[in-house]
């Protein structure tokens, strides 16, 4: 056991501060539920798991590399034009993501439609560039970007898991791992037409509607803040 720990340390030599950068955004400083950034796209793509996983990866990629680029350039960017420089860097990375998706995964690209483009105006990206990358070293900025991307992704995946399971009775549909859990035909694991215990079950259509994402988001915030009293909004 001790040996495993030892080798892990050798693989990821991280100081305490760097670990904090990477894991803090997952809960205590979550970009979505605590900093209230990047909600627009977080809610719109979450009706199924597959598009939200793709979105989470895309956003993590964009935040991490834009943080890295801006941090490398931070001493050469004049203060007055920094917004434009940041937007150009972000737009360039988003274009890469868009073209890659279009080439390798066209159905997902169609499903996400305009929301890939909207990563440009995702406030998390701009927010991290302004608040972190403009003032910190490249490696730390890169870690901060990965951490924030994961913090965003985790919320997306929780919401879309609930919405897909209760709204359609499936999980990961559209991938080779598709699981059909519950529904009114013999394709599903639990067939509500024949199963003696689940005859009452009907998929909840509310979960497919956009409003459900907002309710689940509100409940996640409620849960998180009731566990973590220092986040409670006093005003």
């Amino acid at each position, binding site marked *: 056991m001790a040996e495993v720990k030892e080798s892990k340390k050798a693989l990821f030599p991280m100081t305490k501060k760097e670990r904090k950068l990477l894991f803090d955004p997952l809960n205590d400083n979550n970009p979505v*539920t605590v900093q209230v950034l990047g909600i627009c796209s977080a809610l719109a793509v979450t009706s199924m798991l597959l598009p939200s996983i793709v979105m989470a990866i895309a956003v993590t990629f964009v935040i991490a590399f834009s943080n890295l680029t801006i941090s490398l350039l931070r001493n050469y960017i004049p203060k007055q034009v920094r*917004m434009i420089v940041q937007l150009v860097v972000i*737009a360039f990375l*988003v274009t890469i993501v868009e073209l890659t998706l279009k080439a390798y995964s066209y159905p997902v690209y169609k499903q996400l439609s305009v929301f890939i483009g909207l990563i*440009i105006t*995702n406030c998390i990206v701009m927010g991290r560039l302004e608040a972190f990358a403009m003032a910190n070293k490249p490696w730390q900025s890169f870690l901060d970007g990965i951490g924030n991307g994961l913090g965003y992704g985790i919320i997306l995946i929780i919401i879309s898991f609930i919405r897909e399971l209760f709204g359609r009775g499936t999980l990961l549909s559209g991938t080779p791992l598709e699981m059909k859990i519950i529904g009114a035909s013999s394709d599903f694991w639990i067939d509500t037409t024949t199963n003696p215990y689940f005859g009452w079950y009907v998929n909840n259509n509310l979960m497919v509607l956009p409003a459900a994402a*907002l309710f689940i988001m509100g409940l996640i*915030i409620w849960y998180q*803040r009731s566990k973590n009293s220092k986040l409670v909004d006093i005003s």
Partner: protein
Amino acid sequence: MEDFLNIFIKSAFVENLVLSYFLGMCSYLAVSKSVKTAMGLGLAVIFVLGITVPINWLINHYILSEGGLLGMDLTFLRFILFIAVIASMVQLVEMVIEKVSPALYNSLGIFLPLITVNCAILGASLFMISREYNFSESVAFGLGGGFGWFLAIIAIAAIREKLKYSNIPAPLRGLGIAFIITGLMGMAFMGLMGIDPAIFFSGK
């Protein structure tokens, strides 16, 4: 004209940018604590959307598309050009308002630059492309979308002003309850779905 009204009403009510596509959510939640400031931001959004969507239509049609002036398919430059247009339009609007009406400029204050990173603006331009609107339709879509955003932010600001006096569980206060209210408003707006405004304007 029928088309114009049809798209205007559809984008303002039936397919509201905030309540059915979640666009512009960040500033919608951040600036909806009082009706007065919400009004200022809402008006600025109507203005900027009404200008940028048609301009981006012209850019897309005459410069980026294959049949345009350059004769090349440059659509991969779309994001960069659109965001540059939006950023410069916001800057321009800011300068014009400052010159023409200093009072309005002071009341809008910091909200003008905020509009650049409002997803509703870029989102409307991208929707305009993916729905293949023509020029007059894109004008209607820009104005209607802005008007819908304006209505939504005024409504939630009014509700949040009243909510200050109600007894909400502490962890849900502020952001949490704002999300749930937005969800309820979204469901209310959903009641309008399936209405085709074209029927009312078909001349009968």
